[in-house]
């Protein structure tokens, strides 16, 4: 089937105009771009994109995102790497970062050290995923985070990406490369912030390496503008004894999808994926996860919760793959959804592919309304129905919000949830 021509033509024009100026080696970019053109954008005929229709993306004439002045920014949570419309504008000062930690522009780093280029695409699958190939071809800048062996950070690191919609719909392709050394400990907050209405596209690809016994708490706060299309893919490799916890908070965007593919490559690796999505209006919020238990004695734990109001659409697809030799596996997966409107919609699909016999795997999915007994209990204490509903929705979200590793962020999110809920602030 042929693609509507607009977006492909637009990306081709961008390629023609810019490919010589983009950072890093040209040849892998050219190959990737050809792969992208051959494959085209995903359509709802692809099983993985069945409910996530990219027609809007395909039919838009995407310009390249332009530099923009700095808008007002939230308080930093720690050393901050700042991007505006895909370009790095502020790097943390050298004295803000402890020894052994490098947090900087990937384009700038690549200009100094061309060998970094060979690290790109080691985990992200450019062959099977056309958006990843597109990103490989067109990425302009991104974040590089390297943490040396044994370094423990006592404050969170922050990557803030601000997107300001311009006069014409613009596309940003950004990249993240992250390597945690053996035994290192870090908290990373990635914050994507849209400054207002107007369509734009953000296509991000991240590759994360966790060496033996590395610990990473990874918060992804997605608060794009109401007309944004935000597509993210994370590829993660975990060596023995490493612990990875993600907190995906999907609050904004017209259509937002985050894919996480984790490869548990060493014994004792533990992967915890948590997510909260709050949708209203006609927002589509999509989470796809794949956890590959490639070695024995690996564990994973997933908990995604969604609150959907009005005509919002939530999607959760969680795949757990246990290889034949991978015994003594424990994998849990839960997806809970709260529908505040009878026009809101959820598609949830657990997919366990287990080829070993000594494993403990469970999954559960629920889609429901507020518990009438809880509602009645609150009302018998004088709390009005609207406030009681808000309070219970807040309680539903707080399981995720309350577990965020940064107190300031937890408070910000809880305040956001209370403000977001119909019924407002009950306290």
């Amino acid at each position, binding site marked *: 089937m042929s693609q509507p021509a607009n977006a492909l033509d637009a990306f081709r024009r961008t390629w023609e105009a810019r490919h010589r100026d983009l950072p890093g080696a040209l040849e892998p970019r050219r190959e990737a771009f050809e792969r992208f053109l051959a494959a085209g954008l995903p359509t709802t005929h692809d099983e993985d994109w069945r409910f996530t229709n990219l027609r809007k993306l395909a039919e838009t004439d995407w310009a390249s995102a332009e530099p923009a002045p700095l808008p007002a920014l939230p308080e930093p949570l720690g050393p901050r790497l700042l991007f505006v419309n895909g370009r790095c504008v502020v790097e943390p000062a050298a004295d803000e970062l402890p020894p052994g930690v490098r947090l900087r522009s990937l384009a700038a780093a690549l200009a100094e050290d061309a060998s970094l280029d060979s690290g790109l695409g080691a985990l992200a699958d450019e062959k099977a995923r056309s958006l990843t190939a597109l990103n490989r071809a067109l990425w302009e800048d991104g974040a590089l985070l390297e943490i040396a062996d044994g370094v423990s950070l006592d404050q969170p690191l922050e990557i803030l990406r601000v997107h300001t919609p311009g006069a014409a719909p613009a596309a940003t392709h950004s990249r993240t490369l992250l390597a945690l050394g053996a035994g290192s400990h870090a908290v990373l907050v990635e914050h994507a912030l849209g400054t207002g209405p107007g369509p734009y596209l953000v296509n991000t690809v991240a590759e994360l390496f966790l060496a033996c016994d590395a610990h990473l708490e990874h918060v992804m706060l997605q608060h794009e503008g109401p007309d944004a299309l935000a597509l993210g893919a994370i590829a993660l490799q975990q060596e023995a004894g490493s612990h990875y916890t993600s907190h995906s908070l999907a609050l904004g965007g017209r259509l937002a999808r985050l894919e996480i593919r984790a490869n548990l490559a060493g014994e004792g690796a533990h992967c915890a994926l948590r997510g909260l999505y709050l949708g209203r209006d006609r927002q589509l919020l999509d989470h796809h996860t794949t956890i590959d238990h490639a070695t024995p004695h690996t564990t994973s734990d997933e908990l995604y919760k969604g609150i959907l109001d009005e005509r919002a659409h939530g999607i959760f697809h969680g795949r757990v793959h246990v290889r034949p030799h991978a015994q003594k596996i424990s994998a849990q997966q839960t997806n809970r959804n709260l529908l505040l409107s009878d026009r809101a919609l959820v598609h949830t699909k657990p997919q366990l592919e287990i080829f070993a016999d000594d494993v403990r795997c469970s999954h559960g999915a629920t889609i429901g309304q507020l*518990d*009438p*007994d*809880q509602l*009645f*209990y*609150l*009302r*018998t*204490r*004088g*709390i*009005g*129905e609207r*406030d*009681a509903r808000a*309070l*219970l929705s*807040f*309680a*539903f*979200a*707080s*399981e995720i919000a*309350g577990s965020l590793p940064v107190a300031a962020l937890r408070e910000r999110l809880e305040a956001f949830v209370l403000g977001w809920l119909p019924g407002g602030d*009950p*306290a």
Partner: protein
Amino acid sequence: MTAPLLEIRDLHASVGGKEILRGLDLTIQPGEVHALMGPNGSGKSTLANVLAGREGYDVTRGEVRYDGEDLLGMAPELRARRGIFLAFQYPVEIRGITNGFFLRAALNAVRTARGEDEIDAFDFLELVKDKMKSIEMDPKFLDRSVNEGFSGGEKKRNEILQMALLEPRLAVLDETDSGLDIDALRIVANGVNGLRSEQRAVLAITHYARLLEYLVPDYTHVLLDGRIVKSGDKALALELEERGYGWIEQEVQGPGAPA
């Protein structure tokens, strides 16, 4: 004579199409403690739920007046704000809301309705800790999710704590004594006794007379098949404890009486 606080006349109520209350009459004056006893299935909890306004309890006949007003037309939160409190037989667990947050939200909802200022976090903490001390409840229960993982006794104590904070004019205790050991029973009864005054009244629904040794009723009523069939003072409660309900069933029906 003062106006009754609660006046129930010829109350008929159904649950799921089945009639449970069949012509119940009960009048409670301010300052009184009434005990309502009866065997399982006699309609005790149905009455408690009707008074609190739970959905699914359909009143098919009769009326309930509270402080001179039609109670049945009021939303549950309105009843609470006017001073009715139901201590639940099975308090609900709410994960994700701390008990302290919940208690303050409830207190402020009731205070606002009474035309009082909202209580700030600091004053609230002082107040609630004082109340907790009086019912021997550890302040750590403020930071836990509402009733989640509480033992049966802890849940009941939490109900009494809510009652102590909200200071209702009519407290309805739905088998608050069930599942309590003797120490917990004494503490719960003391909590209720601490609330007694000339303006307030208590309706204690119970299966056993045990509670009534500590919470001495002015009146005892026996509920059978959805009707109050016998009323007396606290001596009736003791008699029921000794003899069970069989003799009353016989007395009510009489030999060979139609069911």
